[in-house]
């Protein structure tokens, strides 16, 4: 728990942890989604919900609708497919043409299975690495881990954070808003 403590002399103020945001803890997913929706309606944009399982309504409520992941996966698949086919084409037609049973050098139907496997392999890598990269994972430290009871976010508790970097952020107003939304607890989160 921190406040921007005005009692400290200026040369010691850097020791006071900066504030990441205010976090409210909820008992049910419905409370969390309602609170997120209300905060968004009031104009807060740098808000985030934390839940033990994916809740579609939650990311809709905080205004996070689109992700670039499908495009990344598509490009991954495209690159994999083209690379897979032309790898075979180059090796079997250009670099080392070999007559196998009188088949044409560019016997493309026979190249399709490996082209397909390369497509899937690269697209799958794009999906996994793309998801991790967009989520900025691995990330060993994050301010929300400082919040009391946050370990319950992977069990049965639901959290909403309004971040201090929000343009509309005013500490007292935010605390008051979150308290009015029926939380179990409201606390400050240090950076």
């Amino acid at each position, binding site marked *: 728990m921190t406040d921007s403590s005005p009692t400290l002399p200026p040369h010691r103020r850097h020791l006071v942890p900066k504030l990441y945001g205010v976090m409210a803890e909820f008992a049910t997913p419905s409370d969390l989604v309602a609170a997120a929706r209300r905060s968004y309606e009031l104009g807060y944009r740098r808000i985030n919900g934390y839940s033990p399982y994916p809740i579609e309504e939650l990311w809709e409520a905080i205004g996070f609708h689109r992700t670039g*992941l499908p495009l990344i996966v598509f490009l991954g698949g495209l690159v994999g497919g083209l690379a897979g086919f032309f790898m075979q084409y180059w090796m079997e037609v250009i670099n080392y043409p070999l007559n196998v049973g009188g088949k044409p050098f560019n016997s493309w139907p026979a190249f399709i299975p490996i082209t397909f496997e390369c497509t899937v392999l690269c697209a*799958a890598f794009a999906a996994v690495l793309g998801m991790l990269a967009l989520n900025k994972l691995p990330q060993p430290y994050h301010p929300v881990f400082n919040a009391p009871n946050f370990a319950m976010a992977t069990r049965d508790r639901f959290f909403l954070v309004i971040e201090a970097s929000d343009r509309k952020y005013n500490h007292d107003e935010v605390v008051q808003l979150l308290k009015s939304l029926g939380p179990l607890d409201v606390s400050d989160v240090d950076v």
Partner: protein
Amino acid sequence: MHTTAPVIDPGLTFASVTDKISSIVLKRKTPIWWFIGFAISFMLFQLMMLAITQLLFVGIGVWGVNIPVAWGIDILNFVWWIGIGHAGTLISAILLLLRQKWRTSINRFAEAMTLFAVAQAGMYPIFHLGRPWLAYWLFPYPNTMTIWPQFRSPLMWDVFAVSTYATVSAMFWFVGLLPDFATLRDRARSKPFQIIYGMLAMGWRGSARHWHRYEMAYLLLAGLATPLVLSVHTIVSLDFAVGIIPGWHATIFPPYFVAGAIYAGFAMVLFLTIPLRKVYGLEGFITMRHMHNMAKVMLATGLIVGYGYIMEAFFGWYSGNKFERYMIWNRMHGPYAPYYWALILCNIITPQFLWFKRVRGNLLMLWLISVVVSIGMWLERFVIIVTSLHRDFLPSSWGMYEPTRWDWSMFIGTIGFFFTLLFLFLRFLPMISIFEMRTILPEAEVEE
């Protein structure tokens, strides 16, 4: 759906689901049967190491393979294991796309089974090479011989298919585990477990933005894994079908092999989950609904496989080709006929019991049927490989095949290796996907 059994015990909550599954890994005392089971599996695993050592020291002659039967039970076991693996991908990917909620409590386990089975499968073709230390020649890498692999061969397709399948299955599994690693990290009491699960969780914190991308990635991976799993066994079947051997050169092979793989895989899932849910008290998660559904999948794929056998015989007769005709006659009446009829008994006759609801509801019966089907699928590959090769065209080049004790050691050893991995998985990772179980709880509904 007329089966009224629920997908999940209605009394469960977020907290109880989390605690119950994570306590198996973190809190509960490791049961004595775990140590016994692990010890036996590990011993058999050592038998595999011995068999491999013998093989590498002496050479491939320690196996029973020779011309004309150059693909003995080694390639058989490759196909058998990889087929078993397919049920895991089917459950985790195809049933996800079909929005089958009942998959949720068995997908993690089935995916683990896939990975461990593919690990066994992958060893066989490599050791069957004769000079397995040159296995990397299969990959297209720039080399001093300035040659490239021959990509028109299904054996090359196999290299790409199996290695892609293993990689994608491992990634799918790991992505599925990520939120559960975070759960374990937050529940673990001891420092080493906190650190290890913490590193594996990569800092997962359940952020809504993360979940959105995560769900998208998971869905896309499922969409990619679905055609992949079909392609893998199709390509495995093409290893045979592209060859001109009577009994192999048939267009029915791809669908017939894929169905057989799913059939064998579900048999293995049932074989493993029926005792597991009992000993870990997971009847609330893996309910009778699951048993009924898996039995139905087995019945359906079993019928497709049965159709495949009938068509093989029909093609043999209808082709008018004397070698094809002789092949099917030889299967039914030749020296390996007992294998053929045992196969028919195991794979066509036995699953017919699954038509009856009483049988599907009887766990002992279901378990026994799954054992019989697993043996049947092994026999199927024996019949396809050995009876086709041992008498092909010229009677002067006919021969007989008998697996040696090193063949059997290797096979029994891979079963030991498979169970070794499985026991470690049960002990150290959540065998049921915790976060996905939360999503199917009644309290997960968001009320507007």
